[in-house]
């Protein structure tokens, strides 16, 4: 007799299976016969692996995300921490940041092509843009939320300004920064799909466009979507595990 705990853990899987069956059924009944069912999609994945494209495309997309994301982090975080610290800097720059932020990275495509031409650099630029503004706002907000107690204690113990930054400011903002980085990484992963539509010739986003254009291979389209979903989930889980580190946990428990 299976125990209750096992049943509970199986429930979500049962739900997924039920959805898959529903999907297969709907695909079979669809009039155009173009929409693939889960079985065809799985076949698409196998197809990709067999052609050696699976790894190549995944790596290409990850490569662009990593570069855009890291560039944005390296620039936005120090900038944001500084702007957040100096009240007047925040007053001055906030309106500009707030106007740039709602502009979708895709709206930058013409400018990206103008500046970087067609190819990897453009798509990395778009990913960079999509990460830069959220990260700078996260950093500004993180600094502003440091309790004054910590800074005063640091000054009390005679810390030099450099030491104050390194030994008080930086550890105090770290939990919030990591959450911001996790969320932004998720955004980057979403944008890479769009960014790859600027005529690069590898990657999961490219695959989606190309598979459709070159032969209505919707099985590959759905396969690509599934892979995107899984990798996005793994990236998120990976970042969450960082938040579990003992010296950071304090930043997440009180709410």
């Amino acid at each position, binding site marked *: 007799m299976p125990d209750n705990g096992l049943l509970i853990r199986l429930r979500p899987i049962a739900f997924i299976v039920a959805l898959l069956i529903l999907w297969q059924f709907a695909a079979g009944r669809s009039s155009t016969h173009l929409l693939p069912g889960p079985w065809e999609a799985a076949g698409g994945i196998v197809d990709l692996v067999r052609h050696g494209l699976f790894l190549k495309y995944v790596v290409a997309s990850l490569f662009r995300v990593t570069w855009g994301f890291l560039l944005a982090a390296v620039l936005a975080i120090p900038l944001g921490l500084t702007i957040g*610290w100096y009240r007047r800097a925040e007053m001055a720059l906030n309106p500009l940041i707030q106007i740039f932020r709602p502009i979708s990275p895709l709206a930058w495509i013409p400018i990206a092509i103008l500046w970087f031409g067609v190819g990897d650099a453009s798509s990395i630029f778009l990913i960079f843009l999509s990460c830069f503004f959220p990260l700078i706002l996260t950093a500004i907000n993180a600094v502003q939320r440091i309790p004054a107690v910590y800074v005063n204690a640091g000054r009390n113990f005679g810390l030099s300004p450099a030491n104050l930054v390194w030994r008080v400011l930086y550890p105090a903002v770290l939990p919030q920064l990591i959450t911001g980085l996790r969320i932004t990484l998720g955004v980057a992963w979403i944008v890479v799909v769009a960014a790859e539509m600027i005529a690069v010739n590898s990657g999961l986003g490219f695959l*989606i466009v190309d598979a459709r254009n070159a032969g209505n291979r919707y099985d590959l389209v*759905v396969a690509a979507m599934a892979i995107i979903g899984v990798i*996005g989930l793994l990236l998120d889980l990976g970042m969450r595990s960082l938040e579990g580190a003992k010296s950071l946990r304090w930043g997440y428990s009180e709410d």
Partner: protein
Amino acid sequence: MNSLAEPRKWERFVWPVLASALFLLLWHYSVVWSKTKVFPAPLAVEKGLAELARKGVLWAYMGDSLRRVALGFGAAAVIGIPFGLTLGWYPAVNQVVNPVMQMLRPISPIAWIPVAILLFGVGNVTAVFLIFLAAFFPIVVACISGVANVPAIYRRAGRNFGLTAPQLLARVVFPAALPQILVGLRISLGIAWLVMVAAEMIAVDSGLGYLVIDARNSGKRYDLVVAAMLMIGIIGLLLDLCFRRLGNIKSVRWGFRDES
């Protein structure tokens, strides 16, 4: 916590104006010195905006974009809020549904485009569908955590006063979760606005997003491209500010006491 003492009131206006003026100057002179033939200077953008306004194109496209966002976001809210509240209220349901959501969430709406076009064809419905998809998940997530974060003492007090489960949900849980739901709605609206641009670039032939691509393709009118980008930025900002204002209403303001 930050470094300086209380700045004066007038400084709130002086600094941003100075910074923006500096930005415009830098922009203008970069264009002049690089002798670019294509990239527009600030004045060219302003003229482009005036041109669009005169032709009526600006207002028509703004209306189209706003309408699509309203429909997609509205649908996401109307479906997402009850859905999210249910998931938050019944952890068992959440446990079953959540893994599926976590897998669907990272899939960019852009990736859904071929499927959407297949299902709905090219046009407004596809655009609204994509916006709906993008706005849906943040709202659900915010509702789930809003309900989860209602302190147990509130629920206990409600039960103490003899409220039934539906009454509890309506009179205690929902108001208590409302600040967080509002934040989720605001973030979701921001995402909807971003995705609108993407959806319009591909699936329709009107709207601000469409204008960005069309201005380039039909004549390399980069002045119009940047003008469109500027409008996208400004309207997006205004939408966000409106939502923040909602957070000032007294019955929810308590949940935002931390916001600067």
